[in-house]
């Protein structure tokens, strides 16, 4: 029941927000906050109760889910509402709920128009994301996958900013929609192809993840089907050269939209690769692993170089995301237990640090009314504790030990080294570039000669609490990441075997 609750709470909460606007502007905000907190509580409750370390060696055909919920939907085609949760999905669901809370909080003063409808969209994005993390029926997964897009489109198109350089929020929203929709359709084709192949082999029509996992496929067919999945997830991650939508969407979206985009929408791409692309097509995935790792390297460097050249602070941060996701891609396709653990850690870390940076740039925008880095500088003494927080998250984003980002990046690199030493060696140069762009950001915003006198308003309690909460998580999990690693670890434990990397680790 808890699983369907995780989806229904934000869904109904969204409707309530929409209608609640009649009673005032504050009502939707509180409803949204309440429902996200409730989702967070449910997720934490599941974490508290369940034991995610044990991998029960279940009988073949069924998978070791910690919690499962299923109901028939379209029995004729073997489609059902099948939700299931293991450590990996739990971590990501909890992350979604937490960032959902932050997204509501950071829009508290920023959003003034159509507040009810805004929160409807915000919550329904999260419905889609939570659904993606829980669905283990491929048809249902696709439904949720598409469901994320529409509210996000509205969020950017209706509440976004149009910048002076001719980039419009409508343009950015359309670009986002076309990229993700087109790649989503490729995935649909692949899903259908897989289902038909499964029917040809066994005679059953089913969209069940567990059943489809063992489908016998010819090498060529597996490669084509895998590519359909890979493209859809690669657009979301995003993988260079399919990243074009991300900077535009980030720059034009409202703060809450950027937080959701960077914090969780990107993670659906990585989750998709881990949950579907790799287990469904292990051999084909193994075959493209060198290519994928190469693309990861390209992403690391391309994102870092592009970030340095941006003038819009949100585009700057968006390109650093691309760089970080390059590490994630390398870790996923290295496929050793250590690297995969690193992937989960880095996903969570990136969600925290990048959304914090987006929240901070939103706060800067509220105070300075600009996002142009050329108009900033010397702000250190003028903004109270904001620069201090920015310093902390910038340092996290460059992978300073003691933060969760370090744990993620280094586990990925440690884990990938046995499989691809040269890739790791080159990616390590990306650590230097990460320092370059991170410190450049700090330098351009807060250091240098001040542009004016006087102090802006300091952070209020709401803003302070949000940032302090994120910082506590980044540092706390950076110094003791074990709860995270243990929870997600069991869910990932099978992948190295599937990819044939089981023995590469730990045997010198």
């Amino acid at each position: 029941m808890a699983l369907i609750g995780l989806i229904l709470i934000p869904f109904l909460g969204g409707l309530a927000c929409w209608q609640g606007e009649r009673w005032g502007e504050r009502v939707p905000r509180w409803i949204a906050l309440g429902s996200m907190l409730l989702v967070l509580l449910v997720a934490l409750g599941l974490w508290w109760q369940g034991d995610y370390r044990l991998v029960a060696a279940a009988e073949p055909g069924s998978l070791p889910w910690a919690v499962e919920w299923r109901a028939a939907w379209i029995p004729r085609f073997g489609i059902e509402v099948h939700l299931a949760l293991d450590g990996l999905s739990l971590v990501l669901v909890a992350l979604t709920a937490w960032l959902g809370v932050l997204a509501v909080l950071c829009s508290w003063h920023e959003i003034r128009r159509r507040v009810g409808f805004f929160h409807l969209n915000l919550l329904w994005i999260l419905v889609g994301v939570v659904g993606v993390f829980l669905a283990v029926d491929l048809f249902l997964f696709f439904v949720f996958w598409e469901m994320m897009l529409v509210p996000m489109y509205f969020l950017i198109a209706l509440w976004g900013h149009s910048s002076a350089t001719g980039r419009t929020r409508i343009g950015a929203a359309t670009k986002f929609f076309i990229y993700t929709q087109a790649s989503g359709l490729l995935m649909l084709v692949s899903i259908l192809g897989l289902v038909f192949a499964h029917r040809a082999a066994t005679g059953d029509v089913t969209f069940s993840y567990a059943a489809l996992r063992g489908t016998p496929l010819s090498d060529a067919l597996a490669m084509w089907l895998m590519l359909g999945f890979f493209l859809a997830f690669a657009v979301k991650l995003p993988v260079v050269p399919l990243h074009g939508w991300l900077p535009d969407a980030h720059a034009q979206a409202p703060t809450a939209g950027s937080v959701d985009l960077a914090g969780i929408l990107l993670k659906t791409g990585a989750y998709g690769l881990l949950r579907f692309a790799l287990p469904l097509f292990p051999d084909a995935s193994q075959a493209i692993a060198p290519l994928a790792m190469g693309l990861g390297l390209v992403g690391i460097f391309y994102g870092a170089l592009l970030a340095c050249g941006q003038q819009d602070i949100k585009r700057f941060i968006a390109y650093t995301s691309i760089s970080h996701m390059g590490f994630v891609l390398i870790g996923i396709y290295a496929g050793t237990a250590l690297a995969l653990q690193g992937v989960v850690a880095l996903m969570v870390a990136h969600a925290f640090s990048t959304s914090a940076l987006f929240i901070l740039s939103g706060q800067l925008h509220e105070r300075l009314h600009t996002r142009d880095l050329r108009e900033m500088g010397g702000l250190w003494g003028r903004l109270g504790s904001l620069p201090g927080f920015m310093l902390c998250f910038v340092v996290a984003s460059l992978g300073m030990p003691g933060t969760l980002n370090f744990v993620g990046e280094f586990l990925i690199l440690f884990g990938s080294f046995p499989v691809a030493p040269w890739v790791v060696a080159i990616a390590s140069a990306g650590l230097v570039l990460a320092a370059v762009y991170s410190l450049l950001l700090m330098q351009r915003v807060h250091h240098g000669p001040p542009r004016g006198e006087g102090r802006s308003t300091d952070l209020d309690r709401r803003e302070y609490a949000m940032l302090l909460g994120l910082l506590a998580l980044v540092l706390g999990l950076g110094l003791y990441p074990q709860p995270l690693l243990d929870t997600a670890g069991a869910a990932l434990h099978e992948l190295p075997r599937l990819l044939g990397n089981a023995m590469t680790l730990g045997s010198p």
Partner: protein
Amino acid sequence: MRLLLPLTFLLPLAGTLSLAFLQARLGERGSARVGVTSVGLAALVTALLAYRFLAAPEVLTVTLWHWIAVGDFQATFGLRLDGLSLTLLGIVTGVGLLIHAFAAWYMRGEEGVTRFYAYMNLFVASMVLLVLGDNLLLLFLGWEGVGLCSYLLIGHYYRVAANGRAAFKAFIVTRLGDALLAIGLFLLFHELGTLDIAEILRRAPERWAAGDPTVELAALLLLGGALGKSAQLPLHTWLADAMAGPTPVSALIHAATMVTAGVYLVARMHGLFLLAPDVLALTGVLGALTLLMAGCAALAQTDIKRVLAYSTMSQIGYMFLALGVAGFEAAIFHLMTHAFFKALLFLAAGAVIVGCHHEQDIRRLGGLWRRLPLAYAGFVVGGAALAALPLVTAGFYSKDEILWQALASGHGGLLLAGLLGSLLTSLYILRLIVGIFHGEAGSDGARRAEAGRGPAHGLPLVVLALLSTVLGAAIEPPLGEALPAPHQGGEGWHLALEIVAGGIALLGIGLGAWLFLRRRAWLAAVAARGRGARLWWLWHHAWGFDAAYDRLLVRPYRGLVWGLRHDPIDALCHLPARLAGRLHVVLSRLQSGRLRGYAVAMAVGATLILLAMAVVA
């Protein structure tokens, strides 16, 4: 004992946290009090630990918690105290305390004192973790932590753009070395399956014969990290610019402790380096080259702190030279005495700079010995130790030990470089002292110089001055168990070397005194024209490394960033959209609404289709 060990980093960390959260309420004096007290307590704890350790020398390990545990990958938050870490710990907290106290005088009346002490305390905490970490990952945490604090403190006066650039440069250049170190960690873990230092040192000889390419590579990567942190060729360019920070920062981070972390790393991993003779030889050669390069550069600087910065590079070059001839004990001994006398020189320089109203150009100072007697005394004692004046100074004993190790292990070339370096050292430090304290004052700031007062100013200088004399050399670091025994040789040779080295130091002093006191005008004339001017230029710019790196790395990178700034790949992805747009224009023109056009198109189309069918049929 077990409970005490973690306190050495927890106390400064607590200092940082309380400064960060209470900043508004503390004020300048309160901040200084918190900052100094936390390091003072850490120093007290260290003294207790040292007392216990010296009474019963046994390695103390404390595992606080498991940091990361995934399968074979077990990194703990574990501290390990042996003779080597105790030596370093003593330097970090002891010299750190003196510098923190001095900073209370130096920083008075400036803004951002809270921030300054918060970063300084964080630095001490990180440095303690660096030297106490029992595995390479924890060492790396401290390693990056000190780098971050160094960045923050160099850029302390953030309003000046040049300081920001210097801080940035320092972080990025050392980060290049850190990336190499990280790859070294990946390689070591892959090969040996552990990151625990003691375990690595145990397993390495079992796995590799001496000279095995893999172990050479691993040692080379670690050396890369050490070169960056310790400002040795070719990653040395950041240190001179790092002098943009407040002078106590230069004393603590860029002279006494952080920059010597590379020496510590190599000494700590000595078992690995002994298996890699080629890399060890390279270490010595790079050290020798750096000490000569930086010694020459120090001769042609006009900023007090830049002279001292190049001098630091040069002295760390000696330590690397010692490491290169496997004289690990000599390297650490020199690390210790250098920490004393270089911190003294920097603090004395700070006293001069503040006393002369922030004037630090040698040409604009002069004749100060009467007005700033304590600073003068500090410079004379510290300078004598730096120049290794025989018998009475601490520097003599440690440098002599290095030279002796080079001789005893048969490295004649390195020995010669070391002796030549002694001559350079005497010359540049004498030039500095004469320039500041003798002759005529060159500016109003120097003419109106005011001597510092109070114990925060005087006490650190006096204590460090005492430690820079033979008293400091009497402190014998308990390295016997932690490091391999030094090379032995004939005592007669040793005595001869001592006489030669002492003679060279004295010769340098004499030559310097003659040149800089008597032949000043002549020197200035030589340096102003022809070859002399070119040599001055070359040395003043430290052999032109900065310009070369700028051309080879910085500008291409900037060009790349500039060229890519509009995201060409994204532009490429816009092609289909553009194409569709064009097509739209063409096709909408066809829909002109004129019947005549439609009729023609229909007729032509029908004809073509019929023709096509006829041909196919």
